[in-house]
């Protein structure tokens, strides 16, 4: 049980340090933006990891509604929480980059607003979890997660109708897009590092959630055990 944690921890330590070297030293300095562009190696991988975690949350929510497996619900909680953290990193690093480059902290552009709305949706999911009572919360939260995920394409479509200021995708974008191979390498190393790091945190959070539920059920069992009932009588 301990092994995956050690493996993930060592792997994320190595990958994060190599990613830091790649992003800060090995990757060339951007011609017009200068060193501030290096935040890109953290901003973009965080965004990818956050979206991936929200997708896992969606799958886990459906799976839970079909199978009613408590462990799957634990995974849904863990991915939503860690996803919100990574989404927050995206929303913080974005303005830090935008201020020197665009001259403004924030703009109501398609990608920025969609990410913010996505963040709001998953925060509301966590609030529902927090305020839920008893065993019905996982079912209610799963329903909300499915609604939230269905909302994402609609959010994106509606907000894209406004003018878009965010840089076009540089990975898998159209003709004329693309980045220096060394930058791409740094980005991919950091993506790998963030992915492994996120897996580590999700795994730890998942184990904590499962342990919490076990403790709760043991408490519930104990409170109705003959010895306890006699003691309280």
């Amino acid at each position, binding site marked *: 049980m301990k092994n995956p944690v050690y493996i993930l921890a060592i792997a994320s330590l190595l990958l994060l340090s190599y990613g830091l070297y790649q992003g800060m030293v090995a990757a060339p300095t951007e011609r017009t933006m200068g060193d501030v562009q290096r935040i890109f190696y953290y901003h973009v991988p965080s965004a990818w990891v956050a979206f991936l975690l929200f997708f896992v949350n969606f799958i886990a929510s459906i799976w839970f*509604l079909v199978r009613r497996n408590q462990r799957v619900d634990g995974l849904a909680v863990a991915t939503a929480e860690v996803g919100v953290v990574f989404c927050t990193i995206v929303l913080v690093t974005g303005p830090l980059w935008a201020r020197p480059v665009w001259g403004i902290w924030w703009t109501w552009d398609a990608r920025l607003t969609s990410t913010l709305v996505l963040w709001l949706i998953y925060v509301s999911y966590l609030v529902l979890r927090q305020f839920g009572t008893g065993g019905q919360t996982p079912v*209610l939260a799963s329903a909300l997660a499915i609604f939230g995920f269905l909302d994402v394409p609609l959010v994106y479509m509606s907000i894209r109708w406004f003018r878009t200021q965010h840089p076009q995708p540089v990975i898998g974008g159209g003709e004329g897009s693309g980045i220096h191979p060394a930058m791409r390498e740094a980005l991919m190393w950091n993506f790998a590092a963030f992915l492994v790091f996120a897996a580590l945190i999700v795994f730890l959070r998942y184990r904590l959630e499962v342990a919490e539920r076990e403790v709760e059920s043991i408490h519930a069992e104990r409170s109705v055990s003959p010895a306890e009932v006699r003691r309280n009588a």
Partner: protein
Amino acid sequence: MSQLVAVARRTLIKDLRLECRSKDAINSMLFFSLLVVVIFSFSFDPTAEESRRIAGGLIWVAFLFASVVALNQTWARELRNQVLDAYRISPAPANSLFIAKAVGNFLLVTLLEALMAPLFVVFYNLRSIGPEYQLMLVTVLATWALVVNGTFFAAISIRTRSREIMLPLILFPISIPALLAMVDATTQILTGESSPWFWIQLLAVYDVVFTTACLMLFETVLNAE
């Protein structure tokens, strides 16, 4: 199918009769939107030009907040005397209950809009440049968009601590695309600057997607324990 319609009709009639006699929801909604109209009028100069550009957002924000009043009491009434539990053990299809509640809320919010629209026109000197039938279409689609998810989420929030606060917290983030669509469609019809059809289509898609999702998941949520 006929059972679905029959149960839904009975529930709807029961709810409407209750509302007709008590007038709890509609009165508080009306007064609330009236307050919004008055308070907003202090924040900008309500000349014809200015209000045409702002009214779309103003009207829908007022209706959104007011409809939360109706949505919150949708299920609260059924908690007394364990009516909701009786529904759950009865063989009546769960979706008929949902449809009745959603349609009831739709009628209630539509009535509110019909009563408030003249007030907006009077207080803000509103005159639509675009055709009126488009406004009607937007109103129907937008009201359904608000109440279908609202009714569903009210069934979720009723099961949590601090019920009344919970509903807007989970409803508003999901409703953002619908809100954006209804506000922009209304503004574009009022100002006549550009075509509102993209937004009307988006509202229609939103309605279809979430009505389907509600009908598929309502039974699960009703029986959650």
